[in-house]
């Protein structure tokens, strides 16, 4: 089973990388970019019988730092 884990900073946590990307986009002349948040995509290939609980635990224990980050689990096939 292919699973994508999307890790992003919690809203309200300042995102210096997102801000720098935003600034760079404006520097390239792209207008109308309201905000940029940078995150991380972790693509897992796991056994088909992997439970949702196990995926959740992987995210909480390692893939995301719950102090500053949220995660979203997306099963892609």
């Amino acid at each position: 089973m292919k699973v994508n884990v999307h890790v992003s900073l919690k809203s309200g946590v300042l995102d210096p990388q997102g801000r720098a990307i935003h600034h760079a986009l404006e520097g390239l002349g792209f207008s109308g970019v309201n905000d940029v948040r940078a995150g991380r995509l972790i693509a897992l290939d796991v056994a088909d019988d992997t439970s949702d609980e196990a995926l959740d635990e992987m995210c909480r224990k390692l893939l995301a730092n719950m102090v500053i980050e949220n995660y979203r689990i997306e099963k892609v096939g």
Partner: protein
Amino acid sequence: MAFTAGVITFPGSNCDRDMAVAIEAVSGKPATRIWHGDAALPDGLDFIAVPGGFSYGDYLRSGAMAANSPVMRAVAEAAERGVPVLGVCNGFQILTETGLLPGALMRNAGIHFVCREVPLIVGNDTSLFTAKYSKGQEIVIPVAHHDGNYYADDETLDRLEGEGQVAFRYAENPNGSARDIAGVLNAKGNVLGMMPHPERMIEAAQGGDDGRALFEAVFEGLSVA
């Protein structure tokens, strides 16, 4: 009395030798070097230092992989028994990732790696680590990091300030850290994490010796205990 200090080395640590040299310079006793793969710590450690560097290449997040290594489980157990633990720079990041200290270290607000001496204000002068400084004292210690931007939610920050757990603050904030926090203690006061490198300021030849008092405080504090 016997004073046994241990310095952990991960693949990618690069301040472990400096840390060991600083400990020996102050205590007169060589520090035990401990490899990250060791699941058990040597018996009778009085003090554990988690040094700076780029453990496991800082893959995933700074300190995240090291926090899950066998030796850090042993360090966490020792800390819970009350053994003093100092984490500097990457060591601070590792201690937050293990949950031994609150908060997280994010990418510097200015995006760039910052490597320079910074003035710090001592925020606590009663802990094992800071007893030889005085509250409000300004000291100069170098920083060298990319991810030193301390973050915790407001409730946690209020608690840290209220309980005297902010050991050091930046007089000039180099990285965007919340409330200028440069170093924090755990609630029990036996774990200190800080981004600046006290082990690089042990004698005048290094450009200053403001870091020496931290190691002296630990050594003397444990010697009279």
